[in-house]
């Protein structure tokens, strides 16, 4: 078991620090509804891998030491030959691993993969499968490994948050974007670059009506009704993965469609960043050679 092979702490239970007073009030600078947060995307961080990328999302009202809130790194190894024991496959076998670092979230995570990480891996694989031209690589496999260095949680958010299921959506959309940049950096043939985006139906204050917000900063809102994360191919106008969670108030029949349409806007914005980052990499390579 992994316990024998790692340095375990003391046998007694350790608790994260509990404070005697509630956190200070958050700054009231609000994130605009129709814009996504600024993305910093860079490829080629792991030279020994076939392709790699690093993504950071800016944090608009930064109070702590760092002014970015989501940090992801992705490495792609492949296409490489499948082991001899594997059965013949006429297309490439995609394997995704998503892992939170132990210091990524407010609660310390262990080293063994848990169900939420496996869930993210499955969503990521579905999102990327639609973009890769799999027939060009028979009998091959490619490994896509995403490491979440810092999750999207806000350090000063009040303790009574409604669970971090909503943060996972932001993390998934970041994973999709960074994996798509890494795959392009590895030179694996794709029909288009995938980009991830999130849109949510939120109520900002207890009295305000529900409104649709792009790239939600979870801690800012009073209540989140529903959220959806979409992986989108902008040039072909195709969706490869939809993950929708929550309850929509029943009055408006077209609410789901509106939410998805707004989410596609977020995806297009993220895709622009991916394309710009890849163009920069290609230009840099052309200058060298």
């Amino acid at each position, binding site marked *: 078991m992994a316990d024998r092979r790692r340095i*375990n*702490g003391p046998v007694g239970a350790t*608790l994260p620090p509990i404070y005697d007073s509630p956190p200070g009030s958050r700054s009231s600078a609000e994130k605009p509804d129709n814009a996504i947060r600024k993305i910093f995307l860079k490829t080629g961080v792991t030279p020994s891998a076939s392709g790699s990328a690093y993504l950071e999302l800016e944090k608009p009202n930064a109070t702590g030491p760092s002014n970015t809130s989501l940090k992801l790194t992705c490495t792609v190894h492949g296409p490489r030959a499948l082991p001899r024991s594997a059965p013949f496959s006429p297309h490439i076998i995609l394997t995704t691993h998503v892992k939170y670092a132990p*210091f*990524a979230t407010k609660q310390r995570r262990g*080293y063994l993969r848990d169900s939420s990480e496996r869930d993210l891996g499955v969503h990521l694989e579905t999102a990327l499968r639609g973009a890769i031209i799999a027939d060009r690589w028979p009998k091959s496999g490619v490994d896509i490994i995403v490491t979440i260095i810092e999750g999207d949680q806000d350090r000063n958010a009040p303790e009574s948050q409604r669970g971090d299921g909503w943060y996972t959506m932001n993390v998934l959309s970041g994973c999709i974007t960074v994996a798509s940049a890494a795959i392009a950096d590895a030179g694996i043939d794709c029909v288009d670059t995938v980009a991830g985006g999130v849109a949510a139906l939120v109520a900002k204050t207890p009295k305000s009506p529900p409104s649709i917000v792009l790239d939600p900063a979870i801690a800012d809102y009073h209540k989140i009704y529903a959220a959806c994360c979409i992986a989108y191919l902008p040039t072909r106008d195709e969706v490869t993965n939809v993950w929708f969670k929550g309850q929509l108030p029943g009055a408006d029949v077209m609410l789901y469609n509106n939410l998805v349409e707004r989410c596609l806007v977020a995806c297009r914005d993220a895709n622009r960043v991916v394309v710009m980052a890849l163009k920069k990499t290609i230009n840099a390579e052309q200058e060298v050679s």
Partner: protein
Amino acid sequence: MAAQSSLTLSSATFAKLSPHPYLLANLRPADASTPSSRTNGRQPTQARPPAINTSSLSHAHGSAVVRTGDTTVICGVRGETLATSQIPNYRPPLSLSLSLSSTGDASTPSASELLNYDLLVPNIELATGCAPEFLPGVPPTTLAQTLSTRVYSLLHTSGLLDVEDLRIYHEKSEGEDEDVGGEKNDEEMRDADSVDVPAREIGAYWVLYIDLLFISLDGNPFDAAWAAVLAALRDTKLPRARWDADREMVLCSRREPAVPLSISGFPVACTAAVFTAKERLKQSQSQGRRAGGGDAASASFWILVDPDRFEESLCDEVVTIIVDCSAGGDQDTKILGISKSGGTIVGPEVIRRLAKVAETRWQAFRDAF
């Protein structure tokens, strides 16, 4: 290889097909006019300059990112509290007025608390896809376990941390509602109290989880990992905490600023690999002849400081030396550890030379902070 053959290979192909002769040709060029160097352009005693960034993570109490060439490692330090009631073999220390132990001797009570109660938990994770041979989905490899254990033992033997920073006290004296988490100004309070009843006792400890993640690995993981641990610990600030007897838990104060750890010393690790002119297979056949030193070519070797992945795959013998020059001036450099494995070429003379190189490496790290 004929000079005018149309089958001349590029150096990258040559490196992949026959790596050992490629490195040998670089270190001992056939043509006397070309200078000798390693395949990455460095001299044998030249190490990659380090770049260190601290305080980049918001959910950790201290963090650092260290880059030496293409090796990148992130270290995050988180503190969690452990009540003394949860420690199975807890025994209160004899005297609470122990000051900073500067010798780092493992026999002092300060160091033994850290060791006995497992208050420092370093772990190194290599399976992040940092290199093609480290893919996730498998339990930690021997290399990862060895690295974690080496960092763990160096943390304890170097006496870097003082257990006083990790103690969380329970103030027993009446009418005191001041937040004290192990400060030195308690001396007056203790002297004023009667000797019979102890003014304060230890209610809990901070446990430091030191997690290292390799983003990219291009040889020499130990040096980078140790530098990241040192940088992250220097950056760590723990909140002021006290043991609340009524609620039987630790409460941290938000009003007061967080307290940095007191770090004594500045140990830096320097690793070198030994590259021999003869390949492994041929070496075992000529074992007997080497002791006599008859064949000059077979006895030639090069010490490559800060090896990268290509060089590490060709070298069996590795030497690591850990030095601390922070005493400075006329005081001697302190050697905290020497470890060597994998062969018999390195002897006391080589280690002496390596210690000099380690001092320059120490200075490079000191300037990078």
